[in-house]
């Protein structure tokens, strides 16, 4: 069942990415994913209701900045770009989580989402999540991203 949920989450992520940020991504074998990057952002959204858990996205800072510029129609060189990138990743994770819960459990069940949080992750944290069985790997227009679901 967890695998079924992960497949749904993966589909929701790619769909939301396209509709929210106008970006295309695809699943990528983990051994083809880069291990090094100056920094990553890690967004998490916790949910509770019939089930409780966390949806998380870890993405390279370049990807977050590009995504934010796409959504806001700004230039990636803008002075607010890092701040905007964090905010956009938070909102992406929030929308992915909400859409996933409806896909997985239907639209009769009420879930509560705790507003997302974002932290900076280093290459060590990235590698740990990359090789964790719960994570899914993607390349989004040449930039790496990881997605995971933890659910009780």
């Amino acid at each position, binding site marked *: 069942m967890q695998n079924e949920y992960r497949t749904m989450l993966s589909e929701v992520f790619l769909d939301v990415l396209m509709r929210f940020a106008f970006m295309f991504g695809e699943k990528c074998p983990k051994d083809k994913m880069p291990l090094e990057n100056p920094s990553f952002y890690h967004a998490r959204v916790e949910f509770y209701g019939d089930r409780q858990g966390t949806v998380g996205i870890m993405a390279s800072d370049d990807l977050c900045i590009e995504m934010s510029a796409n959504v*806001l129609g700004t230039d990636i060189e803008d002075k607010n770009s890092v701040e905007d990138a964090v*905010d956009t990743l938070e909102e992406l994770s929030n929308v992915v989580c*909400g859409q996933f819960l409806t896909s997985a459990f239907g639209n009769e069940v009420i879930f509560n989402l705790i507003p997302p949080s974002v932290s900076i992750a280093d290459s060590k944290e990235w590698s740990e999540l990359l090789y964790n069985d719960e994570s899914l790997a993607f390349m989004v227009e040449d930039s790496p991203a990881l997605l995971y679901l933890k659910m009780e």
Partner: protein
Amino acid sequence: MLYNILIVDDSRTTRTVISKTLKLAGVPINQLYEAENGKVALDILDKSWVDLVLADINMPEMDGVEMIDHMSRDGLLKTIPVVIVSTEGSQTRIEEMRSKGVRAYVRKPFTPELIKNIVKDILGEKDAK
């Protein structure tokens, strides 16, 4: 007629996208207010007249449900149309919101056209009154 519109969302990205959508859609705007949660929104509503509220549900400090509860208990605030713009997909929650007077519901991710059409419909009704 020019309108005062309040956008309530903890995501600055979403507030900016909605704000740009309204401006590009040619909605006649006098003042656009922004609030990052329901508490800040109620403070703005306490001080300024607003013609339309676009609000998220999941926000820190005070969420959209609590904000709408406050508005529905106030004789003046309950007359302001509210549109929910949220990732929330529960039909049960949407019905609950509608029973408290919410006029429309937009699910994230939204298209600018959807926001534009709903806002123009609601403001058009206000003009007709």
